[in-house]
């Protein structure tokens, strides 16, 4: 039961239509599958393959290149602690050790109750706010041990409704109203753009 629900299938078709070639929609559709399931299960890969017109092996080939796509269900909250150079200089090592202790798991692990996965990750573009971390790709800047404990406790208590469960990225989606759309530009149609005139 991890094929797209109707609403997502409609959305998937809408996304595909935005691109000149369906295959370009592969990563967006994998995000959609991960949003629906929390990870990308095998039958979702097969469905994405059908939708964009490639083999499921090709989908796996692409998916496996990208760190964010999970093939097994991670914790409800994916805690990523940055260990890039700026965070490293500002105490990321200590923060990571503290996180491992607090959650009782090593980097790469998931708590037995399925609530938290922990990982040390490369630079997340918050270098002036070191040490930084993300929970389900939502930032926490200038993190301290105490701040980390509060965050984890609040998540465990269900008090952080601003952080959606793993799989859901942006909660605002692009909508292109059909009457406003200029339309995808096919690489196979060679036309001088009208505003260039004879150009």
């Amino acid at each position, binding site marked *: 039961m991890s094929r797209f629900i109707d609403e997502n299938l409609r959305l998937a078709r809408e996304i595909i239509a935005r691109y000149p070639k369906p295959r370009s929609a*592969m990563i967006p559709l994998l995000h959609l599958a991960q949003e629906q399931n929390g990870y990308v299960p095998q039958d979702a890969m097969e469905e994405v393959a059908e939708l964009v017109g490639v083999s499921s092996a090709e989908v796996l080939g692409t998916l496996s*290149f990208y760190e964010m796509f999970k093939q097994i269900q991670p914790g409800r909250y994916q805690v990523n602690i940055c260990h890039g*150079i*700026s965070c490293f200089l500002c105490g990321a090592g200590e923060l990571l050790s503290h996180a491992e202790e607090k959650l009782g798991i090593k980097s790469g692990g998931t708590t037995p109750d399925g609530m938290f996965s922990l990982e040390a990750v490369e630079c997340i573009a918050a270098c002036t706010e*070191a040490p930084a971390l993300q929970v*389900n790709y*939502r930032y926490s800047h200038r993190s301290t041990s105490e701040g980390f404990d509060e965050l984890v406790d609040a998540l465990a208590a269900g008090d952080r409704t601003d952080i959606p469960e793993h799989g859901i990225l942006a909660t605002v989606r692009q909508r292109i109203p059909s009457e406003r759309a200029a339309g995808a530009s096919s690489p196979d149609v060679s036309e001088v*753009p009208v*505003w260039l005139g004879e150009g």
Partner: protein
Amino acid sequence: MAVDHIITKRFNIVDAHTLDGYLASGGYRGLRRALEMVPSDVHEEVKTASLLGRGGAGFPAGVKWGFCPPGVWPRYLVVNGDESEPGTYKDRLLMERDPHQLIEGCLIASYALGLSQCFLYVRGEMAEAQERVAAALNEAYEAGYIGKNICGTDFSVDIVLHWGAGAYIVGEETALLESLEGRRGMPRLKPPAFPASFGLYGKPTIVNNVETLSNLPWIIEHGGAAFAELGGEQSTGTRMFAVSGHVKRPGVYEVEFGVTTFREIIYADEYAGGIAGGRELKCFIPGGASAPWFYEEHLDLPLDKATVDQAGSMLGSGAIVVMDETTDAVAACHNLVRFFARESCGKCTPCREGTAWMEQILSRVLHRQARPDDLDLLLDICDNISPGFAWPPKMTTICPLGPSAVSPVISALGRFKDEFETYIAQSQARPRIPVASG
């Protein structure tokens, strides 16, 4: 002319990310101005501005735009919002705080060059930036700034928001295109595949950085000449620099490009305010993890592309990482090399194998399990990736990621060799195991 803030000028306006907030602060004036001009004149203004690319390579945007072969259609625009070079933090801010400015920049570029579709590639891990950009796009579509017949003219272009999924190498422009085509993000061999002539789906494609494009509304509103008046000779306008690491006030500062010195941006009170805890400077990285390190003697150099290039490093993506005297050079070097080893896409041997070997050797040194000849081996591997350690590197690889891993090693070994030697002297002899096993 005293203009300090061009692209961050709305960062203090709370609702600048909304269409109302943007319009109330002069938004979309550049686009309206452009639409009154002949497209080729818009391109000319950008050439006059001599706007250098802000993504890393620092290539003049107006010149790159000129590389689209005439008569080949369609042409695409791909916005590089993959920001992942360690130390770099500016594009995310621009997308979160002023997404309409970026959108307006995309529209101006598309109008000027006849680009018929734009793909805005935002790094996968940046959920909030994706939300802000999506909301801005939705508003701009509704208000007639994007899509069919923009502002009632015959100019039409769609901007499609696309999210990445976690891979540093996708920031390299040809890997970005592969990714956008639904493939593994592996760079293409160039030449012949320079995106301006052979890009997305084999068609002419302009790839520009978020910050580069965010400058366009100001340039068109005020003119390329006004932009060129700011900053230095070649490094014109202003530029965002993230100053991170051991400073009192880490932050992202927009300063006149080519004028402000490293000493000012690191030490002045209005910028990073000096080394934290009153300690001494050990070294700093002037332009992101890929850049060779600078030291005390480089502090008075201006943040100017040509000057920094000549001094043997680069301004790269505007990322200044400061390390104080307590920093362990071996550990810092290992940290940077580990990044490149993990992010190597694996397409070419010197990088795939070499960076992994380098990481293992440095890890051995750091754990005091080094072998006496480890530093020679390390240098030998570096020489295979980047022959002669020249700057800019001579490449044996398809893209610059491989040689980037060599920068921290040559820097750290060149200046702080004694620290490596101390680790090695303290190392226990271990039975020999081939480095590439496991």
